């Protein structure tokens, strides 16, 4: 039994050490916010297929909006490739509101300003997060 506990503890320590050793912080700055109210609903993806095809995000954030430009920092993000989709839930109803054509009436954005008439694919929106870098992504709200 002692051996099992020791193994588990050792594994946890090693996992924790490995996380600390290969994690980084990421600062997301969102600009061009028309109405300084509501929330930014941010989805961070680490899997291309999930990003491109409406799958599950690695993490989700809900950040209050009080200015035309808002920044937030995520700590302890494992190194790797990510892409971000977000929308501005200006009225705070938890949904991205659309018009009768099904097109967004609240601001939205991606971690690339490519894709002038629609979302850029993961390959275009992707950025690297690494421990040694100053990881910054600036997203213009559309």
């Amino acid at each position, binding site marked *: 039994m002692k051996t099992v506990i020791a193994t588990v503890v050792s594994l946890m320590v090693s996992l924790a050490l490995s996380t600390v050793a290969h994690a980084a912080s990421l600062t997301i700055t969102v600009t061009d916010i028309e109405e300084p109210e509501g929330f930014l609903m941010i989805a961070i993806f680490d899997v291309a297929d999930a990003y491109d095809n409406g799958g599950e995000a690695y993490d989700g954030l809900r950040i209050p909006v009080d200015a035309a430009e808002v920044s937030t920092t995520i700590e302890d993000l494992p190194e790797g490739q990510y892409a971000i989709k977000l929308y501005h839930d200006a009225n705070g109803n938890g949904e991205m509101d659309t018009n009768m*054509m099904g097109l967004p009436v609240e601001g939205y954005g991606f971690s690339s300003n490519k894709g002038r008439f629609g979302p850029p694919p993961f390959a275009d929106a992707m950025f690297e997060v690494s421990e040694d870098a100053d990881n910054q992504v600036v997203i213009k709200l559309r």
Partner: protein
Amino acid sequence: MNRRGFLQATSGALAGSLISPLSAASNADSVEQSHWSLGWQSALPQPLEPLRLDVSGKLPAEVTGSLYRNGPALTERAGIRYRHWFDGDGMIQRFRIEDQTIVHDAQYVQTEKFTREQRTRRFLLPGAGTDIESDVPSGNNDSGNVANIALLPWNSELLALWEGGSAYRVDPDTLETLGRKDWRDDLKHMPFSAHPMVEPDGTMWNFGSAPYAGRNGKLFVYRVSSESGMQAVQPVDLPMSGYIHSFTMSERYLVFYFGPHLFTPGATTFVDSFEWSGDESSKILLIDKNDLSAQQWFEEPPGCVFHCANAYEQGDEVIARLCLYDNADIMQRAMFELMRAEPSNTYPDYARAAFAELRLNRTTGTATVDTSDVLMEFPSVDPRAAIEAGSVFGVGHSDTGSARYSDSVVRMDVRNEETTRYVFDAHHIVEEPLWVAKSAGQGGWLVGTFLDYRRAQTGVYVLDAENLTAGPIAMGRMSRHVPLGFHGCFVGVA
């Protein structure tokens, strides 16, 4: 297509030289100064301060108020010139007319696009017919909205109208932009055409065209109350994704004309997405105002319509008056050439619209069209006259070879099928005539603007609608010129 030979009792004044400005010019400078392309030269990205016009003749008392005009004015920034006439940022020209004086000033509609591009002093967003290299994405239909087509007085404001997205609200006194007109949350950024029509009771009808939506495109029909706002929205699935710019209506029906000018996704610009498909027919949609789901489709040989005059009912038929083109070259070709200032000095025969009457028989489901020989665009009518007997006014071209564009105001008297016109002097390009009723009895004045490109002057004309051939009863000219525009409105002082 059935061509009816309307009697052309054409007469008018043909003063001035008929020599083309290019051939008359003796050096490069005068070529530049007297070229018709002055009308498509970009304005500067700043408002125009008030300037008094020199007035000749006598301005009628009824023509007291403000003539507002809208059109693409800013067509160049940082060395980039737009390719298509639809592209430029909308500028509102105002001519205040009072006590025999006319004063002009102008202000850009402060759209999201214009405001953003003012900060960077360069184009950031694509035009309808021009792609722009930039890292600024289009988020919705209003990202590239230039509010540059028309103006409608609405609830003590002006609506500056585009067609791909929302209208903008403008203060008619200060010309200040008051913001985007959002009719409802679920209608934000929806297409809203530049040609709404208003009933005598104040009800506004309009549509939004989304050729890119659904399988073959969608039309959204709007009914708006001046008091309570948006009352009804009817989405219509289209049988083909045809371009549509305006509509007309009779007492009971709305009439929408779709030429086979078809949208295919994937092109670089909105204009380039359209292609004329002359093997296919035009399709006309009739909608009952009392039941927007009651829709009837008709087919006609191919044709292209930008502007409609009016419509009326006679037995089983609905008769609509249109300015009909043979094809869509006006949009796909001529509007590019105008921006390039190509040296052609004659009115292109591939881009001429003729006055036409479209008859839709609701019982048989058939349509016929009578196309006249009378070239006419930017139609205008006397709203007080019985439609079946009334006249239609518009700009025309006299074929004198003196202008690249419209040089005359035309009256089509539908009752006796006679046409009268006034041809302006050489080197004048004439814009949309607006109807201003005389205070007593019948009749009215036609008020509009012109560009004298030889003198680099923009001005205002006033014609007696009953006596066009007499020529302007008053004219105003100013010592500056502004780009030619599309549509306007006259707001009289009560």
